[in-house]
């Protein structure tokens, strides 16, 4: 059984910052732009959490926009 392709994600490493995660997930993209993209694809972390943007070990962090 082949699984359909779904949106790619990573999970944060312990104590990983957004900067580090963005650099890891989107190499080759300017850091500020990479961070903006990560924010824009992950409002569950960057809009609906206190404190906003706190990366948790259990998080799903999307590294691309929605596919469908």
């Amino acid at each position: 059984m082949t699984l359909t392709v779904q949106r790619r994600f990573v999970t944060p490493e312990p104590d990983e910052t957004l900067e580090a995660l963005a650099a890891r997930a989107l190499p080759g993209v300017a850091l500020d732009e990479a961070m903006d993209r990560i924010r824009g694809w992950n409002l569950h972390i960057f809009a609906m959490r206190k404190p906003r943007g706190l990366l948790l070990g259990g998080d799903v962090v999307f590294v691309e926009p929605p596919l469908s």
Partner: protein
Amino acid sequence: MYDLVIRNARVVDGTGAPAFAGEVAVKDGRIAALGPKVEGQARAEMDAGGKAVAPGFIDPHTHFDVQLLWDGAAKPSLEHGVTSIIPGNCSLSMAPLRAGDRPAVIGMFQQIEELPPEAFTLAFDWTWEDWEGYRRALEKGLAINVAPLVGHSVIRVWVMGPEANQRAARPDEIAAMQGVLRQCLEAGAIGLSTSFVDVDENARPVPSRFAQFAELDALCAVLGEFGRMLQIVPEFYDADITIARIDQLAELSLKHGIPTTYSPVFDNRQTPASVDRILNRSAEQFARGARVWPQMQTRPIDISFSLLRPSLFFARLPRWVRVLRQPLEARIASLTDPETVARMVEDAGPDGGERLMGRLVVRGGGEAPAHLAGKTLKEIADARGQSCALALIEVSLEHGLDVAFLSANGGHDNTDRIGPLLARPDVHIGAGDGGAHLASFATYGDTGYLFSEFVRGTGALTLEQAVAKITGETAAIWGLKDRGLLKPGHAADIVVFDPDRIARGEERPVFDMPGDGMRYTRDSVGVEAVLVNGELAWTPAGYTDAKAGRICEMAG
């Protein structure tokens, strides 16, 4: 000699097989015989009057952990025909829990369950710290069967103390958590729950959310030793995230040979593709051999709000948004300013808000006067000779803004669409949340709603299918031993109900929580008798004194 024979029954045995006219015999708390005619004497007989006689319903997603300590019937679940409940969902349980850690965990429970503080100080004695002690405390007064999960957040607190909601665990801490989980499973916990959504009373993420996947993987290795369930609450508002969680669950299920379940799953008109995408992903993972059970609720979602807090219910109305976003004092000042109110009423539309607000229902509880409870805003507005918008504002002001309004069927309400989803063999009916959200909405009667809306209503499920979904199939999914079927040797958990009437009652406020705390509840409709382990626990005359509930044993 049997203890009881139920005669003149329409036997629905929980397997999905066609119902038949027959009799059911009970002895020593178990089903002793059933068939068209049961021969032999009995100490007591019950005439079912041709009504359905089925296995007691099993509710797989509840938060009765605290309530069970003073109310062993998990009222009103039992009277709805529910004879077994699974508490401990969403990473929270009442054990293992050291005395010093109680305040932290109480805060989490209060956030989810909305229990008054007195529930933790007046209603029971904390006699335990470990799971074995909690089990003993629970067993004292059970009228309903309980199959409790142990919560990941609580295990984290036990091992990591105040750092549980601060950081990732070290390898030695993960090993310690594995040991604690193993002890809990050996002492009667039926599985583990975790959450990726819940927050504590300060809106801080609960401890389980700080765990790396490796920690969850390690805990699932322990579940694998026992073949036990992992329950999660995913980011249910987003299909992509839920699908990512399904994939994680599938990995854990395949690696450790465990069943997993996620809840809730629901449908919204505004995101019509989401539920199909989610269920199809589960189906793909089932096809790989993973067990990833989506729990779908039967009941629709109602929006509830008061003017005490800004609600997006008014997001279409610019002037309302502006006023409701103000701090409370300024908000009240605006709502008492005739010019502002006139503009708000104008904003609500040429019909004075009738289309948008007319069907809102004033809820009991809060400061709403009893004579308004249950009335629509249109009825109230007409009686006052006002527009709906003005009536909403003035009724709120007259009671310190503490008047709750309900917008019924705000989501998961398209029964033609939801029925076939509930009927899917790879969908687990659950996610009821019994015992939670006490002051927000009633989480009871979802089983009655299943029959009224999806058996008698749309016909998406037959009576037999619906019964199987919430009895035999649920027991099989979770691995509950000898429950969920009317079958010789199985526990005599039995519900007698009228298939033509069973439903959920109207939502109403009651003040039966410790400290006269309020909660919303629903009475059962069409349930005629409930037996737990062979003892009559409830009839329309009320609860009996029977305390026959047990901690459920697991198969295998």
